[in-house]
């Protein structure tokens, strides 16, 4: 039966039509072999646009459809549904990308119409060779993996668990809570961070559907949406979790007690080699720091901790374990790192003892922190003048181009806390105030009214003038250079991608944006999913955000996972390799080429055999087969060759 193809060219309002002469594309297309109808419409994706296609398929008995419009990444799935609605297989659709890859990248009159014609012709030539293929449906595993136990991951885990499904929450640190657990107050409500976080931490710990895995990292991920297999490595805590009550007797007994900088206190406080990270830690269990423990590193220690523990919970024989879990969805909530201001001398960090980071200030201001909540200089006195420097490492061509988004507000919060606790004068050295959230502007005005000084500064430098700490900068609004003597400087440092974000992105097969954070499917309309089906993002691993936004995204990621579970099955792409047995010589080159071990050798037939359930349709085997015996459905060699002819502008060489 000769092919009967309908071509539909979209104006996309003026998005395409302003640059591409849509009428001309239609006129050209109407002349091509097997094209029985060619139309243009203002918005092909609108209901009348879709109706146009459905009507034509039915009335003109179309065997294939070409839509020349936006990227197939936008509407391919939707238009496949349109074909299905009219009784055609969805894979008889071909999209010509004349918006993102033609109209939007070409100057008017600079060959954009000729290009649109060529791309549409390529799509028609491929459409003639398209075959109906069917997606495979497979059942999904109802468990969900959440990677990262900060507030975003906790919210996601609780939400999925509350719906009645199993959640594995994997956290690298020995406790959950992430950065939020370290904060003192949260802007703008000035709630105690721990107080509002603790119920959620307890919720995770006590939830019958949550399997909490601390000191753990994901090391391997296989499978696909609905059926992931994940290997998790758990480092030894050297503590019997069931016996430990978190009393802290071991820490006080440790011979290294109060001598190791405590990570949780950002180095301001000290801990022992065995320690409980903080009083509200979940799980409230001690941990032996294997890198510093004398017994574990040298074998020589009196093991005072073992003697001190009344419950015999310390176990130096614990080993690293690797467990394998099966899940249907994965939520990545690995959070952020904080920029190290020590890399640039002008911020004075590491040079002057009263220059601290925002995170250090959080710990200092926190009642369970190293100074028990008092704002103190290194000599133990209270500061009388404090500077807060914004955008340290953010919005910088040298370090990180992005705005960290939360620092303006947290800087205002620091100012408020300093004023409240010490009465000191506070100077905010800002570049712009990016104050975006609900009731945030009101908070800014409140802090202004509390008498905080705002200096719009350029070239901020922290230095010492005659032994006095000072912040120097150009005051952009007054147009003068200012030197402000202060006692303490708080550097509000950038939120940056985790140091191992690249490794993690490869582990899960997800992309990263140019700023290094994990990349969502669509910046506006799909901010939670990734290009990997079944893998979702939550919190600051996607981009810096404040607590309400992290919580919202955690909940949104949970909704994504729950929709996979609720549907109960997932559709797998029907794009797979197929062997033409008559052509296969049995050389087995394809077996070594396949990254998924989807090809086996049929000894009896002497030919290669594809396991379609495992094949992902990459096509590496097809490119490698010397006999041309392997082809890929929907991306067949013939289809691609026809497309090449089309883009090169050669219609008549059929």
């Amino acid at each position, binding site marked *: 039966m000769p092919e009967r193809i309908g071509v539909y060219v979209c104006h996309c309002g003026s998005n395409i039509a302003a640059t591409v002469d849509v009428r001309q594309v239609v006129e050209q297309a109407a002349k091509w072999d097997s094209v029985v109808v060619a139309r243009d419409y203002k918005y092909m994706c609108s209901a009348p646009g879709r109706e146009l296609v459905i009507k034509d398929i039915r009335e003109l008995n179309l065997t294939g459809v070409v839509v020349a419009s936006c990227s197939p990444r936008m509407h391919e799935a939707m238009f496949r549904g349109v074909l299905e609605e009219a009784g055609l297989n969805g894979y008889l659709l071909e999209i010509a990308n004349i918006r*993102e890859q033609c109209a939007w990248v070409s100057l008017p009159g600079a*060959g954009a119409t000729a290009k649109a014609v060529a791309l549409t012709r390529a799509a028609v030539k491929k459409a003639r060779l398209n075959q109906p293929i069917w997606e495979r449906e497979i059942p999904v595993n109802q468990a969900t993996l959440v990677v990262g136990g900060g507030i975003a991951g906790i919210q996601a885990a609780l939400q999925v668990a509350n719906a009645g499904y199993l959640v594995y929450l994997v956290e690298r640190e020995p406790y959950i809570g992430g950065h939020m657990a370290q904060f003192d107050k949260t802007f703008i409500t000035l709630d105690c961070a721990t107080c509002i976080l603790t119920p959620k931490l307890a919720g995770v710990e006590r939830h019958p559907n949550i399997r909490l895995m601390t000191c753990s990292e994901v090391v391997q991920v296989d499978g696909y949406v609905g059926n992931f297999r994940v290997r998790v490595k758990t480092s030894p805590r050297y503590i019997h979790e069931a016996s430990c009550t978190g009393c802290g007797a071991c820490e006080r007994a440790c011979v290294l007690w109060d001598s190791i900088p405590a990570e949780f206190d950002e180095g301001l406080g000290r801990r022992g080699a065995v320690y409980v990270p903080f009083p509200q830690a979940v799980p409230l269990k001690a941990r032996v720091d294997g890198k510093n423990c004398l017994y574990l590193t040298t074998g020589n220690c009196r093991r005072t901790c073992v003697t001190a523990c009344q419950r015999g919970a310390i176990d130096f024989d614990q080993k690293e374990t690797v467990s394998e879990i099966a899940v249907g969805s994965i939520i990545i909530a690995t959070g952020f790192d904080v920029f190290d201001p020590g890399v640039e001398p002008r911020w004075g960090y590491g040079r002057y003892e009263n220059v601290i980071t925002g995170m250090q200030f959080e710990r200092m201001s926190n009642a369970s922190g190293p100074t028990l909540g008092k704002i103190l200089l290194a000599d133990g006195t209270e500061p009388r003048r404090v500077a807060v420097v914004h955008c340290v490492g953010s919005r910088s061509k040298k370090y990180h181009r992005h705005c960290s988004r939360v620092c303006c507000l947290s800087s205002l919060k620091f100012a408020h806390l300093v004023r409240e606790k010490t009465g000191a004068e506070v100077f905010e050295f800002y570049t712009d105030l990016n104050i975006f959230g609900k009731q945030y502007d009101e908070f800014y005005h409140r802090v202004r009214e509390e008498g905080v000084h705002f200096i719009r500064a350029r070239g901020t430098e922290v230095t010492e003038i005659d032994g006095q700490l000072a912040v120097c900068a150009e005051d952009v609004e007054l147009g003068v250079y200012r030197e402000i003597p202060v006692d303490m400087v708080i550097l509000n440092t950038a939120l940056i991608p985790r140091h191992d974000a690249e490794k993690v992105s*490869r582990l899960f097969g997800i992309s990263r944006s*140019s700023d290094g954070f994990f990349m969502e499917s669509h910046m506006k309309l799909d901010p939670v999913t990734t*290009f990997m089906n079944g893998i979702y993002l939550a919190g600051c691993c996607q981009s810096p955000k404040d607590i309400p936004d992290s919580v919202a995204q955690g909940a949104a990621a949970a909704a994504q996972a729950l929709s996979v579970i609720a549907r109960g099955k997932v559709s797998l792409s029907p794009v797979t390799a197929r062997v033409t047995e008559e052509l296969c010589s049995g050389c087995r080159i394809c077996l070594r080429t396949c990254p998924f071990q989807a090809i086996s050798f049929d000894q009896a037939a002497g030919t290669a055999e594809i396991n379609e359930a495992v094949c992902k349709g990459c096509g*590496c085997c097809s490119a490698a087969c010397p006999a041309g015996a392997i082809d890929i459905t929907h991306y067949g060699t013939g289809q691609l060759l026809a*497309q090449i002819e089309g883009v090169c502008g050669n219609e008549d060489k059929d």
Partner: protein
Amino acid sequence: MRTKTDFEPLLVAFLCHWCAYTGADFAGSAGIKYPASVRIVRVMCTGRVDPLFVLKAFREGADGVLVSGCHPGDCHYVDGNIKAMRREPLLAAMLEQLGIERERFQLVWVSASEGEKFARVVTEMTDTLRELGPLNLKGGEQLG
């Protein structure tokens, strides 16, 4: 036969779905301009690009062929891009024997967020092709 003066080189770009094709879309969303003579063919993976496709493009009149996909280590299919990378020098050597200059066939990594890079790569390659002039294959019909 086309001459060097009124010459707008035809560049066929094979882009992997996951990285380079998405990157090219990104260039579009950001409105970054590049020559309209760049024509994109989507493949699922650069490892799918059969040398035959490249030869076919040259035979059909392409003045240059670009293969672009995920950076090493980022492949959606483990190491399809590495397979493309291994194939590249062999194919380039063969093309040179056929009189197709080395610069006419390139493999460049472009991630999903590197729209700007994609636009730069194809613009620069088009400039190079314009310098080289039209590809006039002798007995081109025997190719492919």
